[in-house]
């Protein structure tokens, strides 16, 4: 016996898949700015925001939408070793495989890029750039100076890094796009779209504005946190649906279950 809630809860599993991308007003605006900046003669584009604001998802969507039109490469996981990073860049650009016992010389790579000036424009999408070392970031900048390689990087913004991030990139002529948490209205659209996309209109309608307010209060509009909470909510629903179906109704969300999920994650304390 399988509950419908097991399928619903899986919608909210956190994944960087462009198919799960929900087109929200603020996100689509930022995406548009990002797309436009790809056509500008900018060397580097910075996408920054707090964890769970949709940076990786936006980057992934950009890659999926442009991979057939442009020469674009997506590094979803950070390559921390400088040797491996340069090797990956060269391999992506030259479509050659470098043997394990060989390395790419940075000056050689720089010269290789300079030779391609005016002929090609390669875009690299680098996620989680806060993990790259300062030296490697400097090399990325030098590579982008050739105007053959363009980088779109994402950076986490935490409380302390906020000022640092702004100061660090202010001196450089980069396009900076900041992604923010969703407000209550946007969060409602996000949840409803996610459910409706998979055909759970009834479940979407059962969510009242009071429920959305509660979810927003808990997650502060963070998409990742919202996914986590909704996954837990529907996980509890699944249990009740299978073991005590009399406890739930399909047309109204139970406040008790919402609060139980919030207790489980730690948003509210018992």
């Amino acid at each position, binding site marked *: 016996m399988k509950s419908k809630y097991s399928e619903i809860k899986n919608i909210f599993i956190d994944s960087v898949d462009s198919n799960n991308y929900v087109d929200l007003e603020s996100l689509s605006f930022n995406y548009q700015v990002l797309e436009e900046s790809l056509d500008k003669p900018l060397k580097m584009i910075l996408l920054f925001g707090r964890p769970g604001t949709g940076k990786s998802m936006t980057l992934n969507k950009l890659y999926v939408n442009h991979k057939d039109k442009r020469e674009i490469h997506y590094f979803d996981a950070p390559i921390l070793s400088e040797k491996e990073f340069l090797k990956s860049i060269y391999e992506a650009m030259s479509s050659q495989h470098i043997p394990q016992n060989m390395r790419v010389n940075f000056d050689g790579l720089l010269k290789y890029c300079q030779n391609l000036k005016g002929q090609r424009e390669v875009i690299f999408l680098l996620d989680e750039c806060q993990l790259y070392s300062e030296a490697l970031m400097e090399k990325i900048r030098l590579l982008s100076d050739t105007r053959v390689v363009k980088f779109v990087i994402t950076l986490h913004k935490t409380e302390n890094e906020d000022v640092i991030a702004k100061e660090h990139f202010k001196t450089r002529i980069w396009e900076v796009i900041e992604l923010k948490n969703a407000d209550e209205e946007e969060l409602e659209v996000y949840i409803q779209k996610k459910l409706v996309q998979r055909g759970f209109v009834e479940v979407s309608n059962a969510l009242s504005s009071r429920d959305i307010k509660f979810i927003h209060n808990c997650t502060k509009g963070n998409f990742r946190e919202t996914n986590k909470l909704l996954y*837990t909510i529907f*996980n*509890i629903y*699944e*249990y*009740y649906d299978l*073991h005590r179906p009399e406890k739930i109704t399909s047309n109204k969300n139970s406040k*008790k279950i919402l*609060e*139980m999920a919030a*207790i*489980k994650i730690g948003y*509210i*304390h*018992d």
Partner: protein
Amino acid sequence: MINTKELEKRWYKYKAKNFILIFALILIFILLPYGIYYLYDYFDTPSPKQEVSKLITPQEVVVESSTPMVTEATTAEPEVEESKDNEVILAPTIPIVDLDKEQRTTQAKKVVHRKQAEEKKLVKAKPSSSLTAQELAVINGNDLKREKQKISFQRSSSNYMDVMKTKFEQNKNPREALLLAKAYYKAGDYINAEEWALKANSLDKNMDESWFVFAKAKSQTWKT
């Protein structure tokens, strides 16, 4: 799958905590006005202890003493003898003062003070070179003759007349005219007194006092 039973327990605990919190808040809101009222009432009205302490004044505490001063006072006033035992008599909490009793006690005090003053006068000082002649005279009861100074008070009646006249000219008040008439009469200027009394009467016919001053001044002018 989630351990829902455990989660439910935690949820009940959370709800109970919330309920207690809300209940406590409601209780505070209900009791707060009463509390404020009680405190206001408590601090506003003085407590019986405070009243007693206020009423225990040295005059009202009568203690039987063996000193001759008090015995003399008590013999003079037989009612004071009533409090012969060494008990402290407190005034009643109801603030009613027995005026007769109070008068008697003050009289007794006065007798004591007079006696003390007499005793003081009887003390004779040893002849001392350090005392001045004036001080010695005080001790011996022979006051030195002092020059009597006269203090003379001067009053400028003419200034008063002028002020009153200007005042009258400003407001034409019959009272001012009457006052001037009286002032002139007192000063012995009966003609002016007559004149101002007539002025006052012409302004207010019902002012009987103006007729009275006029008649008095007229009789004085006939005499002279």
